[in-house]
């Protein structure tokens, strides 16, 4: 079924009787060419691109709960390609370009909104680092502008320019950055994959891998054994648990990141703004809630919930940066499990088990990567070679000394 304004009008006039299920609820087949473990954003995007771009068939996505249950269902919806390192920036810019055509391509309005991402700096050293980063972005074909304090003030006059503990010196602006409706992205990919014959199987938890002679044969699931020629795992947050079933230890720790939304407010914040002297980033959703976040709680956790000190810390940051939000009320706090990798960058690679592939380690920046991650993972699965922009995301880069450490904090997952 093709979605369009005309269709909406037609259905409205005929009592909405014609809407079809967004996807089927298929029974799992006995085997597939490709099994993607994890029906979150990255898993669904992988299946979509495998079917659509790489022309593959007999694909299943296995999801232990409901589609989009992963971190795509619980994030702060920011899209951007404002990285510094050559191992990262071309990949995220590729992702941004995929975002830019995505809705028309998969015929689903994911409310991608390029209202800009503004990172603020508060010291000369930060500004120097922003200049390096902004130039790296431009050199990779992305857009970037370095603003001085007056430039920031013109964009966001409501920031604290009067009595800030850490005065705003300027900012790095990416106008093409912005937000997307996170659930819409998951549903768009799911629907697009389903339309191309991918079996999306919900309530199907993978409980083990069948590995014989160093080669994966299939997966054990809560709905029985399913054979597969290739298995791709994209289960951010649960990567450690799932890959332990294949006997692997990984350069990943699971941590909780809390995110926040206020009650609905009339528009106040134009795009995405990040504080450079504290842990706080914010945007305003189309519904009017201020969606914000900060640092991870900082301890290993699979609990999907965090604690009060971080709630206070993040809010303090917000209040310091934009004191006019004080009378808004926090509506909801939620927690997601993050795959915090040892260098803050992801892994898209094959494993030592033939036919078993891994997509993991997205820290708390996986949402913006969803299109490129799916595309690159599909590329790897279909062709057995890494996508050009994802060559650095190898599993052996840690042992060999090719880490991609954007923040420069080393093997300290809770600091990335």
């Amino acid at each position: 079924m093709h979605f369009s304004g005309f269709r909406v009008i037609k259905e409205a006039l005929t009592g909405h009787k014609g809407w079809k299920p967004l996807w089927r609820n298929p029974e799992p087949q006995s085997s597939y060419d490709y099994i993607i473990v994890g029906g979150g954003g990255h898993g669904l995007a992988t299946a979509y691109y495998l079917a659509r771009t790489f022309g593959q068939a007999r694909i299943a996505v296995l999801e232990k709960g409901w589609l989009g249950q992963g971190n795509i269902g619980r994030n702060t919806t920011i899209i951007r390609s404002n990285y510094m390192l050559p191992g990262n920036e071309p990949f995220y810019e590729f992702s941004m370009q995929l975002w830019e055509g995505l809705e028309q391509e998969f015929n689903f309005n994911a409310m991608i909104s390029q209202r800009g991402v503004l990172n603020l700096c508060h010291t000369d050293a930060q500004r120097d680092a922003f200049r390096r980063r902004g130039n790296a972005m431009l050199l990779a074909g992305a857009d970037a502008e370095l603003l001085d304090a007056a430039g920031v003030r013109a964009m966001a006059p409501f920031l604290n320019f009067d009595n800030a503990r850490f005065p705003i010196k300027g900012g790095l602006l990416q106008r093409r950055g912005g937000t997307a409706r996170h659930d819409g992205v998951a549903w768009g990919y799911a629907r697009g994959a389903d339309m191309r014959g991918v079996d999306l199987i919900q309530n199907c938890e993978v409980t083990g891998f069948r590995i014989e002679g160093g080669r994966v044969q299939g997966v054990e699931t809560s709905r029985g054994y399913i054979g597969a020629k290739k298995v791709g795992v994209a289960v951010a947050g649960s990567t450690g648990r799932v890959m332990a079933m294949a006997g692997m230890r990984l350069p990943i720790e699971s941590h909780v990141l809390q995110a926040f939304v206020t009650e609905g407010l009339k528009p106040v914040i134009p795009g995405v703004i990040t504080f450079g002297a504290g842990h706080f980033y914010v945007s305003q959703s189309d519904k009017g809630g201020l969606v914000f976040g900060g640092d991870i709680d900082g301890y290993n956790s699979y609990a999907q919930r965090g604690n009060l000190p971080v709630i206070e810390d993040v809010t303090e940051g917000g209040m310091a940066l934009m004191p006019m939000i004080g009378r808004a009320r926090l509506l909801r706090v939620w927690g997601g499990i993050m795959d915090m990798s040892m260098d803050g960058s992801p892994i898209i690679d094959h494993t030592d088990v033939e036919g078993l592939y891994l997509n993991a380690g997205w820290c708390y920046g996986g949402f913006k990567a969803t299109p490129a991650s799916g595309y690159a993972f599909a590329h790897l699965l279909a062709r057995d070679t890494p996508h050009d922009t994802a060559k650095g995301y190898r599993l052996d880069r840690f042992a060999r000394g090719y880490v991609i450490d954007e923040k420069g904090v080393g093997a300290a997952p809770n600091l990335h």
Partner: protein
Amino acid sequence: MTRLSGGLIDRSRSLNFTFDGRKLTGHPGDTLASALLANDVRLMGRSFKYHRPRGLIAAGSEEPNALVELRGGARQEPNTRATVAELFDGLDARSQNRIGSLRFDLLAVNDLFSPFFAAGFYYKTFMWPKAFWEKLYEPAIRRAAGLGSLSMQADPDAYDKGFLHCDLLVIGGGAAGLAAAQAAARSGARVILADEDFRLGGRLMAETHLLDDAPATGWVSGVEEELASLPNLRIMRRTTVFGAFDHGIYGAVERVADHLPEPGDKPRQTLWRITAKRAVLAAGAVERHIPFANNDRPGIMLAGAMRAFANRWAVSPAARVAIFTNNDDGHRTAIDLAAKGVDIAGVIDSRDNVTAMGSYPVFAGGVVSDAKGRLGLTQVEVTQNGRSQWIDCGALGVSGGWNPNLHLASHHRGRPVWDEALQSFVPAKDGPPGLIVAGAANGQGSTAAALRSGAEAAVQALGELDITATLPDLPQAEDVVSKPHALWHVPGRGRAWVDFQNDVTVKDIKLAHQENMRPVEHLKRWTTLGMATDQGKTANVTALAIMSELTGKPIPETGTTIFRPPYSGVSLSVLGGGNTAEHFRPRRLTPTHHWAEAQGAVFVEVGPWMRAQYFPRPGETHWRQTVDREVLATREGVGICDVTTLGKVDVQGADAGEFLNRLYCNGMKTLKTGMVRYGLMLREDGIAWDDGTCARLAEDHYVVTTTTAQAGPVYRHMEFARQCLWPEMDVQLISTTDAWAQVSVAGPNARRLLERIMDEGVDISNEAFPFMACKSLTICGGLRARLFRISFSGELAYEVAVPTRYGNALMQRLIETGADLGATPYGTEALGALRIEKGHAAGNELNGQTSPQMLGMDRMVSTKKDSIGAVMSRREGLAADTRRLVGLQPVDSAQPVLAGMHLFTEGAAQNTETDQGWITSACYSPHVGSAIGLGFLARGDERMGEVITGANPLDQQQVALRVVSPHFVDPDGGRLRD
């Protein structure tokens, strides 16, 4: 409507307030909601999506409709529930989310187009033309969306944070909570009783039940009086416990001054972190409504709320009301209102064979199937035995049973379980450890059961702490449990609202089912059900039940949802606790701060520190003038700079040398007593982490310095090494950063200046005290000090350390004593320029991505010993990295050099692949006479003299740069050693 009789309001005084500019009056004890009803105001808000006219649904904090903007100016507060806004004299409230007046909201046009706005419609349209989303559709949607508005000004009020500890926290001051608090307090345990209301009693104040044959308010007052007399119990009214966190920690907000016109000298609100060994959740229950066509007309409300307004606040929303119920509870409302003289149009009870419990008409087996009255209810349609009739009424109370208010019990993600007998979800057993749920929140909703379960919960909780509490004598109370008939909605063709605020109707749920958005999380996200300010307190269970009807699966198999903190909205101001603006983080001041201030220094934030950035003199019009002067004064005379912010760690013990040997990549064990060595610390992954100096004051005593930024982390790391890696070593550490003031004295006149403050017999001649020497000595007539001959600037230089309290005096003495030598204070800007001229790496170079190889220091990493990071620094990827630290100088000395420029071979294409490095630090060098920079350049060490391009595409700049040694000043180091 005039007031009814009775109620807990103080009729002796009147309070003036305004709503949308209308001047109205109420009484102390009123909420804004009750006062509005008393003034015949039923229309209080507009819904989120269709802008439907709305009135009150509830009487408590779960209210989804009557959201108003409160107060004005910078105190403007959006989205306040009228039901929790305590009336005060001068209160100014306005309706919100409308264009035009509340009665004639232009956006109500949305309602006409509602067929087009069905669940999920956004996702299916607005895709073409592509550019229109950001330019047209989205801005229009954003303008229409949102609820109230912010003032765009900083909040002028004060906020506070506090910590409390107790044996038992009782959440909720209704029947169960009061009984729990009474039982617990009598045991002597430390107890906190918190309630969101301004009055204790909870539901008891809304009912007419007798306790021991007397009105319940008497019992409540008695308990209150007793509790107030006990020193071990703290009553916290107006305090909402909003979250249950780990290990018995609860977040609570006390609204200290929200009931006052202005807070005065009080904080407006206080954020409490309550650490409770045990807690009793006695938060009561939230009544369910029953969706039917147009069930959102102003005047249609929950029957329990209608009863609360009548009994506690002595108001009825209309002179003639009807009740729609599926259980006995609705009849109570009819009885109570009738007793107060309200005309009961009838009780429509979905159960067959029910009879009236008082003198009012009953429509047994009937349902309400429609309602009229756009801005206020006028009639409801009653359908009974297939026949429909319209009956007149100005308000309708709806009772669909009660949902336990188990919000906090699910904050640890324990899923509520379905209780078939109660037809509701009750708290799971795996709730937050230490939290016991009692009373209606646990499905024990009769007054007698609530009292009993509250007291029992307290006894049980304290028993777990080995505190003996006994059940108090509880009053006799009603013990009727009304089992609702399972009626989740009234089928029909019109729109029937499930989630009022977000405008989710039964049809939307059907559509979600039709489109296979059936898992409860898909249902919520597709329709926005439960995403409103009440977090679905009034909607979720009903929606689940309707989905269960559609799927044919029982409710528990359809799914459950949990709640997340906060229980109700918490202002960002109070969560920030007042740590805003300049109080966001503490300021650390250096020992010479006040002196520098007196000199007119400009300060800069350096991490937590405030440091002097430069010292402008009269006549200097630009900061560069000042900095150039300070740099030249240092190179030509003597400059003085406070470097106290560097981290200092005292390392003592027999194994101190061996310990440092393992921490630094270069050797420290062989350092001679009385000497200093530069030290490079790696992270265990082989990346350069921090540098500093290591001074050996005695055989078993070292003092090491760290960079300002890493002082904390390096000390932590050293303790890790001492306690966890090499615990058998005899070594002790202490951070002495705050104990010693340290001042750098640099320049050709440095020695001459210092000689003037040395005590008798202290010889600091070049022979006696050569480059890299150190010594404990006395200065200025007996002041103990430490002297280090080290240089960051490339000049003859020393650092002098004295006990912190003498830092200011030392600085003053040096400047005065050295006036004839050109003694000049310099700040961080000159410090930076001096070190760039000398080619010393600092924070911009040591950014956590730099290998020792890149710094040209790989040979420092000893292969003869094991040290942190040594092994990993030799990894293939690090060894293969050819980037090296170089100096860069513009070919045309007028050209700029900027940190953050990227480096390219001259004439090469410029992109990520051809990128050869970047400039880490840059400054204007008075010594060189042009801008200069340091940078990392591929094969940099082999390219001396080559002209390359520095590119700054952000400003379309391209600068020809010559690759030079990073040591712009005195490359041989002669000056250091003179």
